């Protein structure tokens, strides 16, 4: 198995680990971190499969996709953290209540 395939499999494992964390944990900060782990998994798959070889340079389009995805991910995480702060200020707890309606 080549190195790039190995890393891409690691990336898919990260994606699923993050998904487990998102579903299983109730604490908002852990959910946000889990989303970040999932995002990292996707980016790892993109970068790993873009690898050419010692002679061929890597494919630049997935690298550009990862850069764009990173900025989008940072923006989303920042907004999520600001919202989580507000939830904690409003309700005093760091978990979302089960009952969604007012």
């Amino acid at each position, binding site marked *: 198995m080549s190195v790039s395939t190995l890393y891409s499999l690691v990336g898919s494992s990260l994606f699923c680990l993050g998904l487990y964390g998102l579903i299983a944990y109730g604490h908002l900060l852990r959910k946000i971190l889990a989303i970040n782990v*999932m995002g990292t998994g996707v980016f790892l798959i993109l970068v790993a499969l873009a690898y050419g070889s010692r002679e061929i340079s890597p494919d630049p389009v997935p690298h550009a996709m990862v850069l764009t995805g990173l900025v*989008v991910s940072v923006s*989303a995480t920042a907004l*999520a953290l600001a*919202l989580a702060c507000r*939830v904690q200020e409003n309700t005093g707890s760091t978990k*979302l209540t089960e009952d*969604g309606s*007012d």
Partner: protein
Amino acid sequence: MVPTDMVPVIAWPVWIIFLPLVMAIFAFLFRRRGAQLGIVTALGLVPALSGLTWQVLGNGPQQYAVGGWGVPLGIDLYADGLSIIMLTMTALVGIGTTIYARGYYSPTGEAKGTHHHQDPSLFWPLWLLLWAALNGLFLSADVFNLYVALELLGLSSVALVALAGGPSAVAAAMRYLLVSLLGSLSYLLGVALLYFAYGNLSLGLLAQSMTSFPASFAAIALMTAGLTMKTALFPLHFWLPPAHANAPAPVSTVLSALVVKASFYLLLRLWFQVFMNAVTPSAALLLGILGAAAIFWGSVQALLAQRLKLLVAYSTVAQLGYLFLVFPLAQGKGTGFSAWSGGLYFILSHACAKAAAFLAAGTVLYGFGHDRIDELAGITQRLPVTMFAFAIAGVSLIGLPPSGGFIAKWLLLNAALAGGQWWWAIVIILGGLLAAAYVFRFFSRAFSYVEEVPVCRDLPWSMELTALALALAAMALGMIFTQPLAVMEIAAPLSGPVLTGGLP
């Protein structure tokens, strides 16, 4: 149909995307001019959209190579019948919501429910960015560009939900954001698999080279999972009712009428144009079953809802279920276009009707300070125009003639019966009955005659009239159906007669 290249100078798609974007920046810089900039956007989009519709009607689908590079190296903008329908829906609801919000957020009428530390002038940049994201999504022909547009749409929706302030809105926004991000990441993983399987990111080229790789199956599964989450398909609908019910009135309108349709539009494009060779009938059946479950569950919850906005939000969950019936119905022989046009008609008329319903509900909340259904007896005497608008919207939601909802359901029923899948017809009819039940539950209260009518605040006339205008639009769709159907035919991926048997 091979799309024709657009003349660069009169590039309507670019103006349609960039006008709201530029106005959003101005609305952020010039806080006091927000409402006026919104009106300018609404007025400016009308000629641009008319121009694009004229071109598509005359010359067929249009494409525009951003950067001059063309696919597969660059990004293309693409407009066909489906795009025009979605853009028109966005413009109709957008214009109505802009006029409504101008009254809702006017300095004379302090909107109830906005806490003092939340700045209502930020509604305008957020809303205009959402509009730009919608337009960008409906015109893009590049899967990765669609991801960025989806994220733009999701983040602006979340920020708008949180604008209402207060614990329930902020919690609903947090839940919405987490679900939205999960959906987008799932979609992005699908995009990554598609790129490594086929070597490009363009919808058109992917459609041409699609084969049954394992990666194709994984990609469509991931993208469908992500997009159905964003469209609140049962059982992943739990985020929608609190978000739509607790958002400010103009925001609930846009979310229910437009934002959820955007991810569904993307599902339609992927299923019927890109992944045609890779989808299986069993997957379509699964979506149909979940859609039927959504219809029943959403209607039951709407019947049980205590608050008016929550009732309307659950109604959205139910009505979105109908849309997912398009997937199994399109599998029938010869019923392809009937199902396709039924789905599009449903999207269009539901957008107008649901927008009218949420605007009306928002007016009720604004006027009476609360929206608990049990205490809303006799409000028709205070808000006759608003309740009339709600009634017309209800007619379309139930699917009674002569509304747009009726035409949509008729097309879907026809597809079900002609294709031999009569069980979907039962679902559609039962869904209509349930919708009648929850609509009348509210009406029996509101239209009842009581001695002491609750006191209502003065409110701007624009709020009542926009609800009425959108409700009448839903009704008009029931009476003028040849033009919309003609537009839907342009580059439609499914062919066949509109109706087998013809209209009475």
